[in-house]
C-alpha cells in the first residue's frame, strides 16, 4: 500500500480527535444553562467523556505525525483552518432540541465508528475504541431517549425537534465522505471506509426518528469542507472563547 497522503494515519486520527474535542466544548457550553440540574450534569458528563476520547486520540496523533506535540498544543495552539473536524459537531447549541438532535446524529456516527475501530490494525487506536464504545453507546441512548420524548411530546417540542432536524440534517452528508486520507486509512486497516458506516447509521436514525414521530428532511444541500479546514462561521467564535485563556497565559495551569 502506497500512501497517497503523507501521514494519512495521523490526519485520520486527528479528525476523530477534533470531532470529539469540538463536540465536547459545545456540550460544555451548556454548563449551568441546561433546562434541569439533572441534564446539566448529563450533558457535561458526556462532554467529559468526549474530552477524554479527544485527549487520547491527540496523544496518538502526536506519535503518528512525529511532532511530539502535547494535547494542549492541538487544542489551543492551532487556528481555525488547521482543525479538521466535521461541520456537524461545530454547529451552535441552539435550543435544547437542537443540541439533542445534533447529539443523536453525532453519537450514532461515533458509536458506529468506534465499533469499527475496535478492529483497527493500529493497536492503540483499537484499545482506545474498546473503551470509547461503551461511552458512546450511553451518549446515543441518552440522545435517543430525549428524541423520543421531545419528538413525540408536546406540539411545541415536536415543532422544535422538526426545525432542529431540518437545520442539521444537511451536515450529515459530510460524515460519510471519502477522500485520499480515508482511503489510505482504510487501505492500511486503521479505520473503516466512512461509507461503510452509513447503513447502520441510516437504519438506527430512521428508526429513532420514526419512533419519535419525526421525518427525515428532504434536502439537496450538502455543505462540506470541515475535513479540509473550511468551517462554518460560528466555529471561529467558539475557538476564540475556547483558546483565549491558554493563549493569554501560555502554559497556565490550575
Amino acid at each position, binding site marked *: 500500500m502506497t500512501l497517497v497522503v503523507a501521514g494519512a494515519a495521523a490526519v485520520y486520527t486527528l479528525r476523530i480527535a477534533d470531532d470529539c474535542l469540538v463536540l465536547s466544548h459545545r456540550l460544555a457550553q451548556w454548563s449551568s444553562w441546561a433546562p*434541569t*440540574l*439533572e*441534564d446539566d*450534569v*448529563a450533558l457535561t*458528563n458526556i462532554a467529559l467523556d468526549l474530552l477524554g476520547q479527544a485527549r487520547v486520540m491527540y496523544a496518538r496523533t502526536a506519535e503518528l505525525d512525529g511532532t511530539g506535540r502535547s494535547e494542549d498544543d492541538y487544542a489551543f495552539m492551532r487556528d481555525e483552518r488547521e482543525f479538521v473536524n466535521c461541520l456537524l459537531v461545530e454547529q451552535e447549541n441552539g435550543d435544547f432540541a437542537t443540541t439533542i438532535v445534533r447529539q443523536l446524529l453525532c453519537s450514532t456516527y461515533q458509536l458506529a465508528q468506534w465499533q469499527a475501530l475496535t478492529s483497527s490494525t493500529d493497536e492503540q487506536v483499537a484499545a482506545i475504541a474498546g473503551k470509547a464504545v461503551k461511552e458512546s453507546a450511553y451518549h446515543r*441512548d*441518552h440522545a435517543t*431517549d430525549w428524541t423520543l*420524548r421531545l419528538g413525540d411530546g408536546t406540539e411545541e417540542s415536536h415543532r422544535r425537534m422538526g426545525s432542529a432536524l431540518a437545520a442539521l440534517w444537511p451536515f450529515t452528508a459530510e460524515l460519510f465522505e471519502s477522500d485520499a486520507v480515508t482511503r489510505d486509512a482504510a487501505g492500511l486497516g486503521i479505520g473503516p471506509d466512512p461509507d461503510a458506516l452509513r447503513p447502520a447509521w441510516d437504519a438506527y436514525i430512521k428508526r429513532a426518528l420514526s419512533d419519535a414521530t419525526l421525518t427525515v428532511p428532504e434536502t439537496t444541500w450538502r455543505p462540506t469542507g470541515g475535513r479540509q479546514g473550511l468551517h462554518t462561521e460560528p466555529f471561529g467564535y467558539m475557538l476564540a472563547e475556547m483558546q483565549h485563556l491558554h493563549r493569554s497565559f501560555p502554559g497556565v495551569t490550575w
Partner: protein
Amino acid sequence: MPAPLWEVFIRSKRGLSHNHVGSLHAPDAEMALRNARDVYTRRMEGVSIWVVPSAVITASSPDEKDSFFDPAADKAYRHPTFYSIPKEVQQL
C-alpha cells in the same frame, strides 16, 4: 409543572444492600434511572441503581418518634450480644 421527584438507591458493590443517596426530578422512571446514573454514579459509586417515586413512600412522622422508637431503648435482650461474630464476617 415540574417533573415528579424520585428517590435514588445505589448498591455500591455486590453483596451490599442498596442505600438511599438522594433524590432527583425526572418525567418518568426510565429517565430517572439515567439521571441517577449521571448525577450519582459518576465517581464509580455503584453497580446497581433503584429509583422509586417519592410519592409512593410512606414515611414515619417526626411527631411519632417517641411512640415508634423510644420503647426499643431499654430492650437490651433484643441485641444479639451474646454471640461472638467470626472475624471473617465482614458485612453484617
